[in-house]
């Protein structure tokens, strides 16, 4: 099975979130970038498991600048066979999705996997957009994926239970927690990653449909108010007039 895994870089989960240029840009000072955890832990590792069980090839693709190659090498160290970097700085999900879709259209894949979202923009958009651009079925937020020939059986959590979905390949799937267990690259993988093929592809002309104008930090949480158990009137008053929940 020929599998394409879409990866994105995102700031390390311990990074301090701050903005510069009048709160219009993310402050990258001192920020360590990693492979977006949903892309790495679930999409990429499940793709490798499928390849290990039934053969095939796992290609990773990202839309990013040359500086992102360290992140790409980490994904190769985990076990992907080859990498593709579409040489552009994506400004919105539509731009990134169309770039990936154009690459996938030319190269033909049985399965395209994405993480359920990136941890920086939390959009959950790219998978569905790629599917529409390629006119393929899309299953969002899958927590389990089994392959039987050309049939994919997926499970995802819904209100009150688990939904089982079957689709035929080729298809696009966004992967959520539970799909696979995180893998730590070993020394052999890290060494092998240095020589694995990394192809740089020129982007196609696509317009951005959305743009971030500014960022703000949420208001600081107010201090906890302690109310005496004997003073129910004050509690009701605060819940009604201040918290406005009753």
């Amino acid at each position, binding site marked *: 099975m020929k599998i394409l895994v879409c990866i994105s870089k995102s700031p390390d989960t311990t990074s301090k979130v701050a903005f510069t240029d009048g709160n219009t840009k993310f402050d990258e000072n001192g920020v360590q970038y990693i492979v977006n955890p949903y892309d790495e832990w679930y999409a990429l590792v499940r793709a490798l498991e499928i390849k290990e069980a039934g053969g095939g090839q796992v290609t990773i693709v990202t839309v990013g600048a040359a500086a992102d190659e360290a992140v790409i090498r980490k994904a190769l160290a985990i076990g992907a066979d080859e990498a593709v970097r579409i040489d552009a700085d994506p400004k919105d999900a539509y731009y990134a999705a169309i770039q990936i879709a154009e690459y996938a259209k030319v190269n033909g894949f049985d399965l395209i996997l994405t993480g359920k979202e990136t941890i920086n923009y*939390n959009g959950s958009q790219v998978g569905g957009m790629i599917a529409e651009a390629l006119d393929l079925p899309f299953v969002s937020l899958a927590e389990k994926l089994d392959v039987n020939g050309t049939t994919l059986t997926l499970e995802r959590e819904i209100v009150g239970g688990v939904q089982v979905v079957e689709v035929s390949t080729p298809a696009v799937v966004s992967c959520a927690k539970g799909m696979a267990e995180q893998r730590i690259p070993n020394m052999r993988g890290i060494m092998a990653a240095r020589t694995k093929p990394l192809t740089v592809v020129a982007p196609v002309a696509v317009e951005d449909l959305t743009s971030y104008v500014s960022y703000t930090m949420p208001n600081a949480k107010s201090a906890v108010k302690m109310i005496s158990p004997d003073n129910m009137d004050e509690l009701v008053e605060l819940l009604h007039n201040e918290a406005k929940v009753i």
Partner: protein
Amino acid sequence: MILVYVNSTNGLSKSALETVTYGKKLGADVTVVTNGNASADLLASLGEYGASKVIVDRSVDGEDAQQLTRLIASVAQSVGANTVVFSHDLIGKAVAPRLSVRLKAGLISGAISVPEADGTVKVNVFSGKAMGAVKVNSSKESFHCCQIAFNLKFQVQLVQLKKLLVKEVQQQLK
């Protein structure tokens, strides 16, 4: 014209009502598009939340994102909608991105506010550690609204009841 998609397969969920209320807050006439077998009486109750018209196609499978995308795109074009609103749920997350590509309409996911005067909409970013103000560059917008953005009881009091028309259609899907 605002078009709101609600999933009425298992009745009308709280998030469906919130989504219609959000659509009404955008300030234009709200048409709801839905599928499934919900009764006309139940769908007519959406008028209490700001809908002025409901279009229902009972032939479309409630879970198939490709069919739903074609249905919503077809209705959006026939009613002249420039904004489509979804719940931030499993179906919304599957259909809204597809619709965005099909209509070449900017998509704002997880909106937590109505648009400001400059057209920007607030969303949570960095897993809730910050908020971003996003604007759509294209002429058609496909908002993907967030369930937790509204205080439903408060909003419902502001919505004037309207006489509601429920129209049953079977779209010719391309």
